[in-house]
Every structure is written in C-alpha cells, then in structure tokens.
C-alpha cells in the first residue's frame, strides 16, 4: 500500500473531490431492479468497501466549474504553442460528433447496421489520401506518436518481407520531436542523428555519409521544427531512397502544406497525420489525439487491419456496401476496435467538408502569413537564428546578452499579459528556444498585441528583470515546486488505510 502522504499545510484553492465527499450524499439514483432477484456470489468474491466519494450533483458541477476556470484554453485566449497547432475548434464539430447515430453505435455491430459510420470512414480515408498524396490510409492509430509507431512497424515489415534483414538504423534529424527516436527505440532499432546545416536544412553531407544498406529509413518533419521547409527536400529523399531506405514524414506540421504541396508527391513513402492539430479535433487537455497513417502503393499491403473498403459496388439506385477489409501483409492491430471514431473522425470529416479544396489552401496560406508577420515584427527584438521566410511557425531565442533572463522567464511573463506562452526549450538545437505557431485563426489585432507584449517583455528584461523572474504574478497560481512533487510523489489523494481492501 501507498505510504500516507505527509500533511501538507498548503492553502487549498479548490478541495479535491475526495475532500468534498460527505457520507450519505447521492449524486445519481439509478432505477430499481425490474427483474426477480438473484443471490449475490459468495462473499469472498466481493469487495467489502467501495472507497469512492459521496456528493450531490450540484457539488460535482461546482467543483468542475471551479476547476475549469483555472485553465487557459483556445476559447479563452491566444495559444501560440509551437508544433501543437492550437487553432480555433469550430463549435459545429461538437454537435456533429454527438449525433445519436454516432454516439450510440457499437463497434462490433453488423456492417449493414452501420453504413453511415463506414461511409464516413471510407470518405475520410479517401480525402486524406487526396490531401497528402498517398495510395492508402489507415485511420486506426490513436495519436501522433501511435501513428509514428505504426509507420515504423510498416517500414520494418516492408524490409523484412523482402528478406532485407540487416537494416536496423533509423536516420533522425537533430531537430526532431522526441517521439521519433522513442518510436524507433520501442522497435529495438538504433537512431542515427543527422545534424542541421546553417540554414536549418538537413545537412546533406552528413546524410550522405550515413546512407548505407543498413538504413531502415529516415524520419523527417517537413516543414521541420524550426518552421522551415527543407530547401533540398528532393535531394534528401533521393539520398534515402538511393540506399534502399524509406522516407517517413512526421505530419505534425501538415497545417502549413494543405493545398501547397502533397508529401506523397515529393516521394514520402509513409506519413502520419495529426487530426487533432491540422483538422481541428480539440486537444482536450492532452487527448484524445488521432493519428491516421498514409502510405505509398508499395506499403499499402502492410497497413494495420482492418481498413474500410467497398464490399459491393454501387448499383443504379443503391449506394455501395461498405465493410472491413484486411491488407494482405498487415502488421496487425494498433488498438481495439475502429480508432477514434466519434471524437476524432466525425469532427475532422465535418471540418474538411466545410473547407473544400480552396478552404484548405486558405488555412495553410494564412497560417504561414501569420507566422511570417509575427517573425517580421519580432525580428529586431529577438534573435532568430535561422532567419528566412518560415512556414507556419518560427523559433526565436529567449535570451538577451548581459541579462540573466531565460526563455522560461519570458514564457511565464507572457501569462501576466494573458497569453499562453510559446513552446520553450524545443527544438533542442536552438538555445533558449521560443517556438511560436500563431495558426490561421488569429486576427492581426491579436498578433499585434502579442508582438507588443513580447517587445515590452524584452524591455522589462533589461530594466526590471525581477518582473520576469517572479512571473507570473497576475495568475491564480504561481510557479510550482517541481522538485517537491518528484521527491514526495503524492499521486493519489485517498488514504487506503481508511479502507479494508482485503476483506
């Protein structure tokens, strides 16, 4: 059993749901049983105590309402979190994904009873293929990292099916997301890190030197995490393909490419999408994500099963019959059931349907416009180490010569101006990185207010650095004692010794 947490005499802003519990309170009453009674199983199979809170509905509502007010969110303000694409999430999505036909269908129903769901999945597969230029798409992966893992399994299976077993190295640029090497580590492959050149591109010499017949492939985010489109992308892909490797695209930054270029056309063999970034599935405070994977023709047979296909073609006045199909050399199954259907596919389907081809191109163009506008406004105040026309985001340095101020301080000070901070300390190749992704759903006034705040903070860093070191000061909560959290490791707020769990 867990050790009793030591008494913390901290001031309680909102009690926990366990603190609020009062014996005998009822939140929901279920109907009485309408069937003749059956005796319960022997007592030794039953639990004696159910240590859950006891609250009325109003207690629960007020508790979660209070908690919600402690959060910053896209609905409450500007959220320029680099690499996360915190765009506005249209409200219609919240209604379409809750239509009863979607909410209350079981994943194992006979296909004849769920033709609506299957048609939606089939069309979404087709749309994603068209948007990114791939031959086939699986919707199954639950998140970006899950899609990456799927992609790496597919790459491994492809080489293995050709008897090409000595390929164990994955090439990953130094600017990559941490999930890339972690996905590879899960497979027992080794990671070879490829440096970036002075313009933020993949260093071609280093890449060429690493390309040999032990290479599984390369995992590349393009535009990369500096927000830059690789100026030698065709050469990079040629080198990787030249040594028999496969090209993996991390679709984290696809928002910059909609209607601009299709990764499949460039020669990417496999790519995951982040429907929660590009196609407006809300981030939900950390999930659910949705991470479909697209592949070129030669990898289509390896996709996870099942995919949605047409079982019987449409006839005169009958729609086609949709059902499930299994790719011939499938790597298996990435999760139970059919992927993140309701919260994921329905929202993204709604979003794509409302944009069409021109609307999607607008998204990328305005995301890139907003990023370049902010970069232009901040250029003279913050050092931008890789300074050229960026795509949907850019990275500035959050430090000033002769000042003790760090990116973290700038990030925290932005909260006092009621902005969510940019991503900081990533990518790792920029010192004190501030990674800024405005997205297309912000207007010029917001961007100007944000730029003004950052310029004012740069001034404060010189004249009143304590304002930054002590920030945030206007928020409900201040900086956290992270060491205490890790040392004491209080992960649970009910006390098992109050309950006899072994009875």
């Amino acid at each position, binding site marked *: 059993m867990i050790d009793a947490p030591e008494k913390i005499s901290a001031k309680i802003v909102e009690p926990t749901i366990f603190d609020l519990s009062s014996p005998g309170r009822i939140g929901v009453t279920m109907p009485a049983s309408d069937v003749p009674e059956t005796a319960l199983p022997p007592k030794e199979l039953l639990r004696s105590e159910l240590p859950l809170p006891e609250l009325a509905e109003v207690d629960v509502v007020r508790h979660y309402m209070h*908690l919600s007010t402690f959060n910053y969110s896209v609905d409450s303000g500007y959220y320029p979190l680099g690499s996360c694409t915190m765009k506005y999430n249209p409200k219609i999505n919240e209604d379409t994904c809750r239509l009863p036909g979607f909410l209350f269908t079981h994943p194992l129903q006979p296909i004849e009873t769920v033709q609506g769901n299957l048609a939606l999945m089939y069309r979404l597969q087709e749309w994603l293929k068209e948007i990114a230029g791939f031959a086939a798409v699986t919707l199954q992966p639950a998140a970006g990292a899950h899609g990456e893992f799927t992609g790496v399994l597919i790459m491994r299976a492809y080489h293995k099916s050709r008897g090409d077993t000595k390929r164990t190295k994955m090439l990953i640029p130094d600017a990559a997301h941490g999930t890339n090497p972690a996905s590879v580590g899960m497979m027992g492959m080794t990671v070879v890190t490829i440096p970036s050149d002075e313009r933020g591109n993949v260093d071609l010499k280093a890449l060429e030197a690493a390309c040999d017949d032990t290479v599984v492939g390369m995992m590349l985010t393009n535009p990369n995490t500096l927000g830059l489109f690789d100026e030698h992308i065709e050469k990079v892909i040629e080198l990787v393909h030249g040594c028999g490797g496969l090209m993996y695209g991390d679709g984290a930054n696809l928002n910059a490419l909609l209607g601009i270029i299709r990764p499949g056309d460039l020669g990417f063999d496999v790519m995951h999408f982040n429907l929660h970034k590009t196609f407006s599935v809300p981030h939900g405070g950390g999930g659910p994500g949705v991470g479909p994977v697209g592949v070129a023709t030669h990898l289509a047979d390896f996709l996870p099963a099942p995919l949605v296909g047409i079982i019987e073609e449409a006839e005169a006045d009958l729609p086609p019959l949709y059902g499930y199909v299994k790719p011939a050399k499938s790597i298996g199954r990435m999760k139970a059931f059919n992927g993140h259907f309701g919260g994921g596919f329905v929202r993204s389907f709604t979003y794509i349907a409302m944009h069409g081809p021109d609307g999607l191109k607008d998204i990328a163009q305005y995301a890139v416009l907003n990023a370049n506008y902010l970069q232009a406004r901040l250029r003279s105040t913050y050092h931008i180490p890789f300074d050229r026309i960026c795509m949907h985001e850019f990275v500035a340095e959050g430090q000033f010569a002769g000042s003790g101020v760090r990116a973290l301080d700038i990030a925290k000070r932005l909260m006092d101006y009621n902005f969510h901070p940019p991503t900081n300390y990533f990518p790792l190749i920029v010192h004190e990185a501030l990674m800024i992704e405005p997205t297309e759903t912000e207007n010029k006034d917001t961007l100007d207010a944000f730029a003004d705040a950052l310029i004012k903070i740069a001034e404060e860093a010189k004249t009143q650095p304590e304002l930054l070191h002590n920030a945030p000061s206007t928020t409900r909560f201040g900086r956290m004692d992270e060491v205490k959290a890790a040392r004491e490791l209080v992960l649970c707020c009910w006390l098992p010794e109050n309950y006899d769990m072994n009875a």
Partner: protein
Amino acid sequence: MTYIPTSPKERDMMLATIGVKSLDDLFDAIPAKHRFPKLDLPKALTEMEAMQELSDIAQANENVRGDLISFLGAGMYNHYIPSVIDHMLRRGEFYTAYTPYQPEISQGTLQAIFEYQSLMSALTGMDVSNASHYDGATATAEAVNLAYAQFRGKRRKVLMSPSLHPQYREVVRTYTQGMELESAGDDESGIGLSPEAFANQVDENTCLVIVQYPDFFGRIYDYTKLIDAVHAKGALVCVVANPTALAMFKTPGSMGADIVVGDGQPLGIPMWYGGPSVGFFTTRKNFVHKMAGRLVGETVDNRGQRAYVLTLTAREQHIKRERATSNICTNQGLLALATAIYLSVLGKHGLGQVAKLCYQKAHYAARELNKVKGYKVSSETFFHEFVLECPAPAAEVNAHLLEHGILGGYDLGQDYPTLANHLLIAVTEMNSKEDIDTLVEVLSEVDHD
C-alpha cells in the same frame, strides 16, 4: 475562409510588413513542380449544409438507443451516462486546452487528472495510476513494456490467457513484434481450464502473465492463487479489468496483482462506434518509475497554495528520446475527465447500484435463456456477460435477432472455432425486463424458422 478572421485589407498590410507581394510568394521554397496541387475534394459546405449532411450520415446507422435493443458487449458497453458529464466536458476551458505543460494556467486539467488517478487507484485497489493510455488494449501492451523493462529484457516470454480479449491479444502481438518476445498461453484449448492450470506454463523466462477480470467470457475468478504461483516464479501479473465489475467484486489489488489495466469506456464514455475511450493503467508504487505515460503529482506553488504538476517527466520520450520505454505523448485527457466526473457523480452509492443492476439483469437473462429448448448457458460465476450455446451457428441466430430489431451477442466463432454456436451476451442497466423477455421470446423461435 471559414474560420479565418483576417480581412483582405489586414492581409495586405501584413504582406507589406513581411515584404512580399502576395500569399503565394511565401512559398518559394516549395519545389515548383509540385506546388499548389489541385485537390480533388468536394466543394466546401456551409455550416447549415454540413449539419444536414452529417445528420443524414448518422441516420444511416441503426443505434442502440431507439433503433435496436442491444445485447452486444465484448469490451464496449451500453451504459447510462448522466447529463452532467457532457455539460462539464463541453466547457471550452477543458476541451480546448492543451496538455498541461504550463501548470500555472492549467490547474483545472491537472487537478482533474490527479483526481482521476486517485479514483482509479481506489477502484482497482492499486497504489498509483497514470494519467491514462489510448484504450484498454494499448494499456495492456504498455504493461508488457513495463514488465520487459523491469527484467531488463532478460525474461522474454509473455503468457496471455486464452480468455483475454482477442483484440487485446492481437494488439500486444503487434506492439511487441520488434522486441523478440515470445507470446504464449493463448492456445484456445485452454479456455475451459481454471486459472491455476495456466500457472504451469510460467517459467524462469516469463516476465508477465496477463489475465482478464471478468474474463472475455464474463467469468469471475479469484486470481489470488494464480498470482501467488506466478510470483513464486519471479514473474509479474497484469489483470485486465472491467471497471464496472470492480464496484462489486474483489479488487485485483487485493489479489496481489502487479498491474491492473482496462478500458474506462463503461465509466461515462459513449460507445461512439469504438472510440475514443480511455485506457487506465494502475500499478504498485515500486513500479512507478517504469510506468509509461504521464503522471500528475501534488505540490505547492510559490504562494504556498496546494497545486499539481506533471511529474517524473524524465521517464518520458521528450527527455529520454530513444531510451524511453514508450513513445507515448498524449493521454486521453478529456475522456479521463469524463471518467472522473462519472465516478464523482455516481460515487460509492451510484456505481454500486449500476454494478448490481448489471449483475441482476444478466443473471435473470441467463436463467430465462437456459430454460429455452436448445439453449444452454455455459458460464458459471459471471458478472454481466455470459456464454450462450445455441442450437444453430451464432451468425444465423444473430441474423434472426436483427430481423426483430435485436442486436444479438458477440459471435464467439469468429475467434474461437470450437465455439461457432456460441454467443457472448452482455446485459447492462440499460436492458429492461421487457427487452430481456423479448430476446428470450425471439430466440425460442429460432428452432421453428
């Protein structure tokens, strides 16, 4: 331009600040040959048109709240979801926030996850819970990662019970194909054996034994003896549990389980044609550093206020990169929140009632079906799901039921060839006595068709 708030005049001012003439000029780095493809997609719909289109698609389905009476479970269950849950989930402050990397302005999410962890620990009888995984199947695969790391890769055998959900077994096999693990034990000839018989297969090379509770066939076993026997061989045990059953039955924690995982869908999450749901993952305190996923811990802020942060992040992919045991990045934040609200508002009393209703109704259904000529209930001690042997192939029986507006049970022949005539029937609090009597009546007609 649907959700883009920039006017043409503002756009031109911004282009001038950047120093380019047009939006297209921003894309010179893109290879010209492939630049600006014409996408073959349907023309954009307005909101009104999109709502109509999506309504039409949804109505092409037959749902289990009006169109069909359902007895289908097999890992996803039709339970009542109190209104309060969705009202809270629709708070933009919750659903449009990102992962709580900035704790000063994310205490809502952080405290809610901390409470979710506490509620899941209480329910499973385990010391610690993480902030959740994608679903029950992937949480099970993460249990394998934990066990593999615990023995530093020196023990390479995973024993999966044949009565572990077939899709969960498939996911574990998919996840572990790069790890050179041996998976064994799920030979279907073992489905009739008691769990203790299964312990004979545990050896010095075994890192993890995975059993389900109630098992895929709905049966309740006390795994205490099995767990003791596995521990005697030095291996770990993961119990995949149905959380509703845990309101009533002895906890896997009290049986000595090392890891308890499962799918939280029954706790306030709609079936949504399979997802998203939430995978819970709980374990003993001594395994906390090997556990994947996010963890929220209690601390104080610099004003002396109790607060919460993501902790032990050094275990995670963004720090450890290729040395991380898992690449997991997101959790299922919003669904973990749904689960926490469900457990809070039902509480001790309500969740106990739900479990008892499921038990009572399932046992009534089993008793009545067992009386019908040609049918036999083959489960003994069970919770809300049981195996029904039918006089005809299960697929035929289901087809007949569907003609009468009933979604029958899961056809076990799909995964267990010797059970081609067997249905797995699930009954929850949503099934009235009338529904059950209708099922019995329609099934008794199958012979006479």
